[in-house]
């Protein structure tokens, strides 16, 4: 596909943009990117303190259960939230130089991918600390991360192009994101949701990727064909829709930034 060829051609720019964002984000902070490790760790401690007693019998290894869910959710939230602003933030540049515009939302998704990889260090730390024995399937942990990455790029493309025209979406989406936290089973077991409505969570794409990750890393099993099919379909659908909407609006973006 031409799209991927062009992205490959602009890989240097993509790298420089990600580097710029990382540098700007952590400039003058003493711990720098280590914050990507501490942030989920601190959040996990608080949540463990509050909820682990509540769900003691349903979730073993609550810290790991929570941390894995939270990191995947935060990956999605950061990648799409940042990608949403990708075009608007780089408006000055888009007006002056020709660059394929989708580079900007994609670079934001790459930025959160880097952040997420650092956050995974937190998971490793907890695994060591709790002397948790990793199942062999955990070596495949990158698959759900990669799927989530592509899923986020699709959503990011969609959001970024629409947000240029309707700035209200920024505010709407921040509400959507916070609602999504509660529908992603990050800090509670999915079993506490009545079976009738459990589908709302089970088919929430964020939860699909979270449970994919947990299956591999915590439960030592490879998700079945059906689960895989859903995970891949979400990812493909998001990419195709995001790409098409973006392409359709691409030429008008300049006039609205």
């Amino acid at each position, binding site marked *: 596909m031409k799209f991927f060829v062009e992205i490959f051609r602009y890989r240097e720019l993509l790298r420089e943009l990600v*580097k710029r964002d990382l*540098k700007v984000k952590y400039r003058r902070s003493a711990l720098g990117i280590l914050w990507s490790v501490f942030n989920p760790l601190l959040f996990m401690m608080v949540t463990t303190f509050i909820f682990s007693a509540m769900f003691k019998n349903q979730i073993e290894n609550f810290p790991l259960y929570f941390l894995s869910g939270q990191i995947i959710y935060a990956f999605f939230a950061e990648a799409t939230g940042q990608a949403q602003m990708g075009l608007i933030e780089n408006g000055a540049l888009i007006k002056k*130089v*020709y660059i394929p515009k989708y580079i900007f939302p994609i670079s934001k998704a790459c930025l959160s991918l880097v952040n997420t990889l650092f956050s995974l260090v937190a998971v490793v730390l907890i695994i060591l600390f709790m002397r948790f024995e990793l199942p062999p399937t955990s070596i495949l942990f990158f698959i759900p991360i990669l799927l989530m990455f592509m899923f986020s790029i699709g959503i990011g493309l969609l959001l970024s192009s629409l947000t240029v025209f309707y700035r209200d*979406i920024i505010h709407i989406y921040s509400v959507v994101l916070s609602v999504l936290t509660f529908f992603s089973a990050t800090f509670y077991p999915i079993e506490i949701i009545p079976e009738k409505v459990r589908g709302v969570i089970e088919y929430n794409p964020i939860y699909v990727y979270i449970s994919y990750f947990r299956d591999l890393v915590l439960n030592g099993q490879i998700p079945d064909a059906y689960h895989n099919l859903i995970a891949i379909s979400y990812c493909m659908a998001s990419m195709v829709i995001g790409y098409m909407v973006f392409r359709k609006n691409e030429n008008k973006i300049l006039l609205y930034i």
Partner: protein
Amino acid sequence: MDEPIIQLNNVSVVFDLHKERVSGLKEYIIKRLKRELKSEKFYALNGIDLSLSKGDIFGILGNNGAGKSTLLKVIAGILAPTGGKIVTRGNIAPLIELGAGFDMELTARENIYLNGAILGYSRKFIDSKFEDIVNFAEIHEFLDVPLKNYSSGMVARIGFSIATITEPDILIVDEILSVGDYRFQKKCEERIKSMMSEDTTVILVSHQIDQIRNMCNKAVLLDKGKIIYSGTAEDVCDYYISLGQEVV
């Protein structure tokens, strides 16, 4: 005869004045319900025909709002035309605003690599040209200072040095020669002149008529999005001046 390097056929850019003022979903719906979404068309460019061949130094004259910058943006591929066809051959170095891609938080060194990537140069290539860029911009002592502490003239210098580090096939210059001090302006002019001898096609927008007269061979005069006069730079400059005198 050579193939033209830039060819525009009946190119138009139309803005919808009304729609652009709607900035929110709510506003859009309300306006739609009230049927206030009548569009008012504004032709930023209207039926532009243009053909430039290799080595042309092309000047664009016109009053403010005549469509000069829009024309440059269309040629540079930044803005897609609403109608008409445009063909360009070769790589384009747009000097539409110097340092457009600079991040003020980053140092000059980091910005050189970032801006290089934006213009499509590889890291290796910038590495090899790094000295040249720094020498031309004369910023040796300040390489690792964040750009926000630079003066605007110095920022413009860096921008110019990066953008002209290769020999592009097409160089687009939008009134940037008025930045920097006198000595640096001369330096920029020299560099553009040396590019001219290297078969680069240059498109120049300037309000300094003498600059167009001295540097260009062809020119057009734009008014309200249309070409109202075209010919040799001499002729167009004379015509533009005579127009100005009529008004006064």
